[in-house]
C-alpha cells in the first residue's frame, strides 16, 4: 500500500529522534545566544540556544512545536554541531541544504542527518527539515535566510 512510500521520509531512526528528541528542553529567556524561527505556512516554531567558546559550539539545546520532520532534524542537528566551529558548521549547513534540494553532496559528514535525504521526494516538507538549520544560521551568522 502507498503508505509505505512514507518509509522514505519516516525511517525508524528519524521517528526515534522525533519521539525522543535530543537536547530538547525549554529555552529560558535568560539563555544567551538564542534565535527563534517560524514557518508561517504551517505554524512550526523552533527556538535554539547555543553556548559558544570563541567560534566553537560547546553546547546547544532547542525547543518548539513542530512535526516529526522538523523535530528530528533539529535533534540530529544538535548532535552534529556540538564541538564544531563556525566554519565547519557553515560547511555542514551548505551540505544539508543542498542535500534537501536533491543536489549531489558528500552526505557522510552529516551523520544521522543524512537520513533526511528522503525529504527530496516530499517537496512540501523540505521547509520542515531545513527550519532548524535556518534558525542556527540566523543565530550564528545573523544573515537573512536566502529564499
Amino acid at each position, binding site marked *: 500500500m502507498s503508505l509505505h512510500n512514507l518509509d522514505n521520509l519516516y525511517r525508524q531512526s528519524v521517528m526515534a529522534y522525533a519521539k525522543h528528541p535530543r537536547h530538547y528542553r525549554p529555552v529560558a529567556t535568560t539563555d544567551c545566544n538564542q534565535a527563534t524561527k517560524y514557518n508561517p505556512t*504551517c505554524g512550526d516554531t523552533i527556538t535554539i540556544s547555543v553556548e559558544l567558546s570563541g567560534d566553537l559550539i560547546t553546547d546547544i539545546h532547542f525547543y518548539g512545536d513542530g512535526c516529526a520532520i522538523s523535530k528530528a532534524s533539529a535533534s540530529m542537528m544538535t548532535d552534529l554541531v556540538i564541538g564544531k566551529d563556525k566554519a565547519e558548521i557553515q560547511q555542514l549547513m551548505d551540505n544539508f541544504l543542498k542535500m534537501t534540494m536533491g543536489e549531489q553532496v558528500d552526505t557522510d559528514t552529516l551523520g544521522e542527518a543524512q537520513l533526511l535525504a528522503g525529504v527530496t521526494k516530499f517537496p512540501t516538507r523540505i521547509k520542515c527539515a531545513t527550519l532548524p538549520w535556518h534558525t542556527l544560521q540566523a543565530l550564528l551568522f545573523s544573515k537573512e535566510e536566502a529564499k
Partner: protein
Amino acid sequence: MKQADFPILNQTINGQRMIYLDNAATSQKPKQVIDAMTHYYQVDNANVHRGIYDLSERATAAYEASRDKVQAFIHAKYRKEIVFTRGTTESINWLASTYGVAHVTADDDIVISYMEHHSNIVPWQQLAQKTGAKLKYVNLNSDGTLDMSDLAQKITDQTKIVSIAHASNVLGVVNPIQEIANIAHQHGAIMIADGAQSAPHMVVDVQALGVDFFAFSGHKMMGPTGIGVLYGRLSLLEQMTPAQFGGEMIERVSLTGATFKPVPWRFEAGTPNIAGAIGLGAAIDYLTAYGMTQIENDERQLVAYALPKLLAISGLTVYGPQDSAYHTGVIAFNLAGIHAHDLATALDQEGIEVRAGHHCAQPLMTKLNLSATARISVYSYNTMTEIDRLISVLEQIKEYFSHEFA
C-alpha cells in the same frame, strides 16, 4: 452533484484516485465554469464599458449580467449593491481602509471574534493602530460556538463596526448573523459578515440577515481565482470613497481633481477581472441549477456520516461542535501522537488532499492552545465512499505511526 462535471477530480495522486477534501481553501471548478471563461476568450473578449463596437458591447453585457446573477444569488435589493473585488480579503480591506478610516476614531471600538480568519482580523488591527480605536474579540463557548452573552457585552455604544464570520473556516460553526446584526444596529454599529465559508455552501439572503456589508470569494464557490464580491447596503456604498482610482471608475478629470461614476462602478478601478466575473456568473448558474438547498442537504448528510466515524477513532479530537447537526462540512481535528503535518503528508500518499496548519486563524489556535490541526472540508461533490476511504486510511496511518516506530 455529479463528479463527472469536475475534470480535476478524475485523477490519481500517488497512484490512488484523488479525494479532494480541502474545499475550504479553494473549490474545484465544473467544466461549465471553465468553458464559460474559454468561451469568453474565444468569442467575446474586449474591454468593458469603454467600447462602442459590437465585441465590447458583448463583453460588457456578459460582465454586467454576472452582477445580476450575484445580486439574485445573495438576494440583494439592488444590482448596484454588488461590487466586484479580488476576493474576501480585498473586500474587507477596502471596508477597513475607506469606511473604517472615515468613521472610526480613537474613542470607538471594533468588535470581531476569536474565530476569525486573518483576513477579518489584520485589516481591523491596522485600522485600530491607525485610529487609536480598540479592537475587541468576542469569546467562544467550550464547543467552539460564539459566546453570545460576551458578544452582547462587547458591543457597546462605542462600537462602530462589528465584523464576524458567517461560517468558520476551522470550527465548522455557523454564527447567528441576523441576531448579531440586530445587536450591532441597536448600538448604532454597522454589521459586516465574512461570507467566505457560507456563500459557497448555503442559501444567503443579505436582506434577511440584516447585514450592511457581506464579503465572499469566487474561487471557494466553484468560480475562478481573482474574483470576489463586496455587497454593501446602497445608502452606505453611496457614502463610501473608493479604495483605488483610475480607468473606468472615473467620470471627469481636471488637472487637480476628479469626479467618479455612480455606485458600483466607482469602486471598480482599472480593467476589472472580466473573465473572472463571467466565470463567477457561470458558477452561480451551476450552483443555482443544482440548488443551494440541495448542496446544504448533501453536505449535512456527508457530515452526519463522517463526524461520528471520525469521533469513533480513538485518539482523534474534533474541534468545534461534536454534534453533526451543528457542524458544517469543515472539520478540524488531530490524531494523538501524530503531528498534523505528518498526518497530511501521509494522507497525501493515499491521494487524500487535506490541509494542516493554523488555517490563517492564529488567534483561534492560540486560544485553543494548538499549533496546528488537520482539516477536512467537503463540498457537495464529495461522496460517502470518499469518507469511507478517509476513515480507513486514517486508521492505517494511525497503525503505521504507532506500530512501525514502537
